[in-house]
Structures are given as C-alpha cells and as structure tokens.
C-alpha cells in the first residue's frame, strides 16, 4: 500500500524538477528494484492518477523492474532475487518490501553462509530518463 506514498514522491520530484528547470515534463521512466516487491499495477495506477492531477499532466511514463542482485562480501558469490528470497516467509518479505537492505538480516549467502550481504542492484525506486520541453 505504500505504493501510493512512492507515487506521490515520484510526482512531487517531477513537479519540482519542472519548476527548477523551467521545462515541462513530457516523459519519464520509473525503475522499480525487484527487491522492493512493489505491486506494479497499484504503483502504475497511482502514478497515472497523480500525474493527471499535477503540473506534469500529460506526461507519459513506463514502470520497469530492475532485476535484483545480492552480493556476498565474504566469498563474492552473487545471488539472484529468486535465490536470495527463496527461503523467506511472508513476514520477512514484507520487511524487505519496506527496507530492501534488510535482506542481509533475513538471509545468508547460499554459498558460504555469511550475513555479509549487500544489494548490488534492484534495491528501490528511482525516476529516470526524464525528458521535457522548454
């Protein structure tokens, strides 16, 4: 449900970008880290609604997923999203959904068993490829 908060933050950052640069936003891309396990449909709907209610009205956008990779600082092994979350329950996944870096608290390296994990990619949400007209 915090997809709504994220959508609000995305649209606010675009509105501020537009005010600061004096450019009208015509398109943008939202990259969603796989680890955040956000509901893309809910996020897309919230974005669509908020864009139309804001100063960036009419901007087109896409929502894409960035695949997650979790690296082990001890042995160098890199885990895919599926490998990293394969043994986690719903409660653990929900915590990671809010704070993706908590993956290191809940899982261990599948190769060496270490908790020394760091998110290499696919952590959170970012707004990219913003295009605008003068």
């Amino acid at each position, binding site marked *: *449900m*915090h997809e*709504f*908060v*994220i959508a*609000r*933050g*995305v649209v*606010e*950052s*675009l509105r*501020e*970008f537009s005010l*600061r*640069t004096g450019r009208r936003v015509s398109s943008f891309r939202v*990259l969603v880290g796989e680890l955040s396990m956000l509901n893309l449909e809910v996020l897309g709907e919230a974005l669509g609604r908020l864009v139309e209610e804001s100063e960036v009205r009419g901007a087109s956008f896409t929502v894409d997923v960035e695949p997650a990779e979790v690296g082990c*600082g001890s042995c160098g092994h890199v885990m895919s999203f599926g490998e990293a979350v394969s043994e986690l329950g719903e409660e653990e996944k929900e*915590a990671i959904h*809010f*704070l*993706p*870096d*908590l993956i*290191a*608290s*809940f899982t261990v390296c599948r190769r060496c068993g270490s*908790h*020394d*994990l*760091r*998110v290499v990619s696919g*952590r*959170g*949400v*970012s*707004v*990219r490829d*913003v295009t605008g007209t003068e």
Partner: protein
Amino acid sequence: MSRARNSSKGPLDYRELLIEARLRDVSRTVLVTGGKGGVGKSLIAATAALLLSRSNNRTGLLDLDLHGPSSCLILGVEDSPVEAEDGLIPPIVGGVKVMSVDLLSRGRPLPLTGRAKEEVVKEVLALTFYGRLDYLLVDLPPGTGDELLTVSRYVRRRGEAIVVTTPTTLSLQVAKRVIQILESMTLKIVGVLENMHAGGGSPSKELAREAGIEFLGAIPYDPSLDGRVGRLRPDELLSTRFAESLREILRQASYHL
C-alpha cells in the same frame, strides 16, 4: 532550496521531497547524539520523549541506531508499524509514536555497510507517517557515521542536537568530534548533557565552554536503573530520579515540560 534536493543530472530520488514534507510537519526535531556508546543516549531520548508526551506535546521517537537499536526494548514496544496510504504508521507507547528498524527486523542483526545505512535512513524518514508533531526525538548511534550525517542533511534548518557525555576523558574527547561535525552542518546545538554524574565537578562543563555551547546540566548516576532498563513500564521509568533530573534539565533548556 535544500542542499539535499535532487540535482538536474542523473536519476531523481523520490524520497527527497517526501522527507522534507514529513519534517515540515514537525515543530522541533531533536537529535540525541554523543561520541561514545553506553553513555545513555537511547535512555535519554526515550525518557525525554515520554516526558514531552506527558506534558501534552505530540511526540515521536525515531531510533536510527541501526546496529544497536534499543528504543523499542527500553519502552517495551511490541506492535508493528501499520501500512497505510500515507506510509508506515508507528505504534504508540506512553503516548509516543515510536519508529525503529528493529520493528521490522525483529531483533535480527543488521549487517549494513555505509551506502546501505544511508538508504535505510532515507527510506525510514520518507515512509514513516508521524503526522503533526511538536517534537521528534531522534536516537542516534555513537560517533559521526552515516546515520548522523544523513539525518543532519535533512533536518539542518529546523533541527537541533543534544550531545550526551559521561564524566570520562574518552567520552569527552569523542564528543568534541561530534560537536565539530554538527557545527560544520550548521545544526543548532542545544548543549552538552552529562549523564551518570558521580558527584563533584562536571568535566563536560569545560568541554561545553571550549566549544562555546551551553552546558545543560548533569544527571546523577541512578543506581535504581541498574539491570532494570527494558523492564520498566513507561510510568515506572518516569518515576525514577533519572527521569526527574532529565525533566528539570530539559525544562531549563526551554523544552515544553
């Protein structure tokens, strides 16, 4: 315009403006800092939050001691934050809205490196919905690491800091470094608060004088707390000599008590 604001190059960070909006809803954000571990920052932050709440202030407590969160243990917080359209709504104990990563990690270790700590702090600040607050107490880990730097970046214009020390040379030496960092970030330093004072003079007074900041006072060592922190209910914590001393010091320092 905030220095934390998105630049025009590279990706936009959706959290920046959310954090600013959240903090605008808080009248006073108070960072509870110190150089050394074990000086009582967390107990002071949690007790101060309870005292302020008891005096009818809308109060929140944010535990950003990511590697050693203890606010929830001190206050006996058991409920989880609730997900809502406005964000994560913190549980309330003793009238205080309490947020901690520990409420999500549930006692597990947090093996976070620098970049990850910054990400976690930003996400917690962006996602937590406190609503309107008179006071937000922020419990920080010892030293001058990512947690202090990241939160200071956002609160600098409306934030203030209390530097907690104990009457030991080591505590005072490292507190100096924290003061230097806070000053470099133009954060208002309310003053130095000495904890576990054992009688006689307060060496923290000299530290405050040298740094040109206020000496707020000294909280006498309270043996009644030994082994009981984390087992006291909010009412019991507030009835200790420790809490009474803290109340008087904060009142003198213009907190609404």
